[in-house]
């Protein structure tokens, strides 16, 4: 996984509440057997018309935001389906940071599995940031700045390390293999039907 340290880029505002993973990437694009190539389908329903032409008003189709690296969203961002195709599509589009007042649980986890930084900030702050132009995210310092504003954000230390070092989570867990095996031996005694 690509490490995440600092990032400066355009932040595209899409401030509606409950942006679900069906909206991020609809069902017809879940039939892939690879992780790549989904960026062009990101926000498919909002981004293209019935003929597959770009809707010029949609934020990611506007000239300033075509290269956006940060997405600003409303509360409960990423709710719904567990599809990791949602963060894969964001990543493939070029977005490595999502800022919203709150996130749905599975999507939040999926971001960290893919080197995407989800930042939780109050709605008023997200709205302010939407008017700022390019933003700079500094993960080591846990700050976010743009225009005249600067915000500090919270992140769990373990999550921070995962992103900073681009850790292979499976490798980390496999380092605990002896402990896992000891657990399995105990388990075989206590709950042998499992």
């Amino acid at each position, binding site marked *: 996984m690509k490490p995440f340290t600092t990032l400066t880029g355009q932040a595209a505002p899409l401030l*509606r*509440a*409950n942006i*679900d993973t*069906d*909206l991020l990437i*609809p*069902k*017809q694009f*879940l*039939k*892939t*057997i*690879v*992780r790549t190539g989904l960026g062009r389908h990101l926000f498919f*329903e909002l981004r293209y018309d*019935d003929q597959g032409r770009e809707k010029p008003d949609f934020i990611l189709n506007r000239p300033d935001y075509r290269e956006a690296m940060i997405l600003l969203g*409303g*509360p*409960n961002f990423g*709710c*719904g*389906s*567990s*599809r*990791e195709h949602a*963060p894969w599509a964001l990543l493939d589009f070029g977005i490595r940071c999502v800022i919203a007042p*709150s996130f*749905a*649980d*599975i999507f939040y*986890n*999926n971001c960290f*599995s*893919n080197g995407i930084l989800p930042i939780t900030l109050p709605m008023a702050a997200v709205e302010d940031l939407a008017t700022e132009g390019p933003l700079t995210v500094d993960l080591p310092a846990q700050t976010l700045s743009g225009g005249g504003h600067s915000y500090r954000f919270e992140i*769990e*230390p*373990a999550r921070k*390390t995962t992103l900073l070092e681009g850790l292979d*989570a*499976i490798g*980390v*867990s*496999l380092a*605990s*293999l002896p*402990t*896992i095996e000891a*657990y*399995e031996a105990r*388990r075989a005694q*206590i*709950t*042998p*039907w*499992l």
Partner: protein
Amino acid sequence: MSPGARTLYDKLWDAHLVETRPDGTSLLYIDRHLVHEVTSPQAFEGLRLAERPLRRPEAILAVIDHNISTQNREAGSFEETSRLQVEALVENVKAFQVPYIPLLDDRQGIVHVIGPEQGFTLPGSTVVCGDSHTSTHGAFGALAFGIGTSEVEHVFATQTLPQRRSKNMRICFEGVLPEGLSAKDLALFVIGQIGTAGGTGHVLEFAGSAVRTLSMEGRMTLCNMSIEAGARAGLVAPDETTFAYVAGRPMAPAGPLWEQALTSWRGLPTDAGARFDLEYTFDVSGLAPQVTWGTNPEAVLDITGRVPDPRAAADPAKQEAMRLALDYMGLKPGTPMEEVPVQVVFIGSCTNGRIEDMRAAARVAQGRKVAPGVRALVVPGSGLVKRQAEAEGLDRIFLEAGFEWRLPGCSMCLGMNDDRLEPGERSASTSNRNFEGRQGRGGRTHLVSPEMAAAAAVTGHFTDVRRLLEVR
């Protein structure tokens, strides 16, 4: 509060804790892993690329459910991309020696229907699947949650997942659920009360007299929808209803092991005096059938109600969100819900595709006809549900009433196969999500119970099913 008293969730967590790392994260052991074709190919590929073995194939049960036609199972009946995904799963289960229920097997069906059916889902276990509706299995007093594909690979390789402990929430439904209502009404009602993010960061335990009297099918419906409230998982404490359901299932313990398991499972329910971070109690004796009007499951109201007016909402953001939803749904504020016509009815899914759901819908459909201009699909959740329904003559009731009787699969819940809404079509659906485009681009989904879906099918518009049942 009693010191040392633990909730059901606390007990499940403690029993599966492998280690707590210095950074505070915990490694949780995973007992059961359900796998389907959509969220697994990249996980198997990840193992191959890293040259890692799959640690415990016997902890897995794989099945194909999302992509498949519900009308035809012959080779060539899939579109090309679906076929590739189906073939990938078949190759992967062979290469990694994963237990698999083939497509033409009677036991095939939706992962969240077949897990319990086979006795794969057990009280006191941890269950994961690359599917958000894994919360369904919490009905057995199992800690069950949906995961992403990277986590699927993590479980393949390690049989564990790094986790953070959730908070405890208890939702008590007290009273007697009125005639014509079912677990789906409870689920929709509570999401309307606490919101789509009301459960975020929590594991919900459903309790109270109206839950204790629910069948396992009803409890599964309730837990299934807990993800729609944002919860990590939903739970119902195991009891005699649970044990009676599990006993004798093909993969359930038997003989002395059954007795040993039973003793262990009886210790799972929340201790008296255990602490919950948040508790709600609702009296459901006066509840009306629920129907959603908007584009997320919290936008729900009584069938006796009217389409809400955005101007009545407190803040401008909420008003704007409501206006957008009503515009997408093609609804006018003030319209009585019973006057809203439907073109499509879908009865099925991991939420409401079990035998009891088939019976509830058939009871309403019996002796009636699907209204002109309505397309009504009944899709059993598994081959075994289908067989049971046919043994009870439910298929005849549906067919005589003009419903289509289909082969098992996820079908129109998410429209990955050819069961989809056309733009502007309105459905009464027993599924779990009314998101924009969920059942097809431009499709308008209203979530309801199987009883209410059948009532809409035979009248052509949303109808208070209690009235149809009184007529009998």
